[in-house]
């Protein structure tokens, strides 16, 4: 009996010793000291894996470089014609396909065009690196979703021009002046609410037939999953407001009939108080439309409003541009 106890105690001791010395040592604790305090060194320069790229064919651009420590880095890609900018940010000591790949998207509108793109590697803590290169886009990226219109082709009768108070200028309409957010064309509104000072300056009705269909094609009819995306251009003038309305074919005629079909709009509208292009996205549930209603969008109405409460006297002109109206499913359009 006593021998058994001694044996048991001894075995317990051995088992305990062997079972308590296994620890997790795959990682170290805290930030890497070399990253934290080491001096930066470029071990391998920036290399771009191709000189031309066709994003429409699914190609991408991969960049590589290697540092002696993990640092915050930025790869800045700038379109030489469009001015589009794509920023790839990260914290690493090695640039490869996991953290330095470009599939044609943009960070700052406009979209890239078929153009030459300048590539530059920036490491803020290291100062100027002079790590640059170029790549030429021969095919632009195809974005997800159902396009409503990008104004690239003449709309004909698919756009109704509502200059009821003759306050819109002759500049209002499709424009091709190098400012388009996507492609070459966008739609510009410009006017002054000085004829009938009632806030309203002008509008256009873009009929769904511009897509070739009676109703706007949507990738999903679930309003909470259906995102409407568009780009607005503003010049920072503080008095303009853009309004976007969705027209539902209430009477099932298959055509837009003003005064008979119901309209919905995003609460709050879009005060035009910034400079440049900006993306807006919201779900159709946000505008209050049902599943049936989003499947029968017969037109989209875009209005220019002059905020007379803030306008000086006489009122000054207001304007904005709009481009690339799309529907996406599940998430906002990813640039």
């Amino acid at each position: 009996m006593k021998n058994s106890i001694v044996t048991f105690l001894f075995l317990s001791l051995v088992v305990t010793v062997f079972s308590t010395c296994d620890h997790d040592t795959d990682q170290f604790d805290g930030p890497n000291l070399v990253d934290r305090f080491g001096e930066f060194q470029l071990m391998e320069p920036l290399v771009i894996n191709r000189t031309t790229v066709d994003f429409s064919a699914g190609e991408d651009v991969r960049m590589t470089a290697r540092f002696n420590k993990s640092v915050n880095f930025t790869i800045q890609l700038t379109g030489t014609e469009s001015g589009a900018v794509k920023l790839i940010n990260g914290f690493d000591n090695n640039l490869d396909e996991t953290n330095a790949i470009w599939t044609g998207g943009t960070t700052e509108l406009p979209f890239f065009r078929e153009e030459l793109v300048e590539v530059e590697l920036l490491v803020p803590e290291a100062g100027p690196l002079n790590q640059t290169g170029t790549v030429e886009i021969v095919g632009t990226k195809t974005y997800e979703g159902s396009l409503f219109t990008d104004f690239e082709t003449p709309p004909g009768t698919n756009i109704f021009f509502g200059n009821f108070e003759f306050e819109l200028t002759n500049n209002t309409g499709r424009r091709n002046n190098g400012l388009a957010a996507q492609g070459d064309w966008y739609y510009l509104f410009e006017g002054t609410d000085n004829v009938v000072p009632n806030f309203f300056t002008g509008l256009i009705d873009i009929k769904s037939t511009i897509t070739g269909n009676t109703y706007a094609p949507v990738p999903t009819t679930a309003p909470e999953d259906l995102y409407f995306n568009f780009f607005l251009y503003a010049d920072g003038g503080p008095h303009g407001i853009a309004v976007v309305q969705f027209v539902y074919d209430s009477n099932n005629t298959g055509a837009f009939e003003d005064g008979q079909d119901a309209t919905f709009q995003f609460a709050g509208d879009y005060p035009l108080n910034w400079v440049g292009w900006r993306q807006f996205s919201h779900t159709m549930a946000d505008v209050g439309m049902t599943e049936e209603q989003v499947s029968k969008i017969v037109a989209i109405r875009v209005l220019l409003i002059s905020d007379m409460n803030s306008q000086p006297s006489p009122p000054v002109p207001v304007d904005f541009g709009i481009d690339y109206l799309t529907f996406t499913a599940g998430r906002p359009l990813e640039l």
Partner: protein
Amino acid sequence: MKKNLLYPLFCLLLLCCWTTGQAQDGSSLPSREDADANAKVQFNGLGRTILNNTSIDGALLDTDTTTARRLSDGEFLLDVAINAQPNDNTEVQGILRIRNEFGGFFGAGVTVEVRELWARGLIANTVSYRVGDFDHVMTPYTLFLADEEGTVNEPEVFRPQKEVIEYEQFYTDNNSRRLQGAKLDFGLAFPVILRDMKAEGFVARIRPTDFFTTPNRFVGGGNLDFSTRSLRDSVGLQADFGINLSSVWDDLQTGAVTSGITNQVISVDFAVHVFENEQINVQVLGEAGSSKLDLREEEKTTFTEDDTFLEAGVAVDLKASKLRLSATYLDVGPDFFSIAAQSKRVAFNNNKTFYNRIGNQRRLRMPTLFDLGRDRALYNFQLSEDLMAYDPRYANVMPYGKATANRNGLQFGAVYGDETSMFDAELGVALLSEIRGQGTFELKDFRQIRLAANVHLDRILNWEKTTKITLGFQQEQTDRGGVEVEVVDLSSTLIEVGLEAELFNRFDLLLGAKMLSAEGRDYVPVIEAFNNIEDFPAPFVADDQETMIGAGLRYRFKDDVYLTLQYQQFSLERALDPTNDYDLRQVFAQYIMKF
């Protein structure tokens, strides 16, 4: 059927019970023979008077126009312990504190508070209980209050101020923690194999809820300690072993609280007397266990961490030589987390009560040997849910005591002497390394040598009056290789020398010196939560020299009643920043009376 078996077994256990009696400490009942054994209510306590004058000067003060050069402070304090025994099995005690700041007159600066309150007794002459304040200690990994940094064998001249700190913070010689709650203990005796078993259980609240974001926090647990009878008489084989559980948890049922932690540590400790005769005793001893930490938020466990520890070794008592030698292997996992064992005495981030900020820029003054020896505000007995800050100059090898996580290696020890020896000494050597790197895969190597020795001149020279020289020594070295920024090379040396000489009857001369030098570089991590490292701020670079000397006289009116008058001088020299060198001086009188 099972119930039928359990009931007689339970009865047998009860019959075998022997009580540990009212073994729990803290009673102010006098143990003197002249005490009135029949008194139902007794008054005891402590009186203390401190008058202190502190001054500062040095290079830093040459341009400092904001810091007062001289400060005076002190206190008059009376702790009255009221102890009552309403019956043979019950005892209650409360300590009422009356305190007056030095300089307070006619009631100004006077505080009256309850310092301690508890009751204890015996249930059915079997189970001992205590409610209210109590001290509790388990093992160094489960519930323990490790010794503070900055001292190995404190010279007697520096002891009076340290005793005040220890009294105020409820520190005890056995590293117990002061808690408030309830505890039970009882014992069982066995006829075969096992000799006896002692069981203890406790629970205490260590943080109250605010009913919104902070839940009640409790610490609880217990231990079962067994002793066997002789398992092999020819070699004296006998074993003591125990099971320990310590748990800190938040009660998420209070108020609107939705997040809290649970930290459990369970261990088995053992001491097996492998061989024992009149000359030698060989023991195999140690402890092994694991910790687990869970963070629960919104009824989900959002963070969990667990790890193990092991301490196992051999100790040999050479009885004739009064020498005990030991060798221990230590392995404490990097994720080992034990709130009740790792919470430190010294809270380096606390505000100091004097010269907390100095210089025209009002910079925080780093705690020094001077502060560690005097400032009770730097000390703490509470449990911290994060690893507390430490100063690598004072303790870099095991800043959280034995429970310091991420350590692996060997410890050697040697203890010599007894009550009659002309000198006694205790030597400890630790050769450890990290298990997991910090900021790198390179691992730090640690070396620590600690020596405490007392030379009893009175025994050597056959004097009747107490004359003793005390020595303390600690040397620590931390190294790490790697590329330039990873390299660590920090060394520190602490030397203590003291003299206690009874010049006349009960009239003592006290002299002492402490010197700390630290040189090199290390990285001191910033702890984000629990024991997780958030960052390493700028490298910790030291080339410091701290020197503290003290001289004083002490008259002992009787045991536990004395008056001491002392002068102490401290200087800090920093080779890397000599313009911020400074000196501190203090003259103080301290009268202590325990009654």
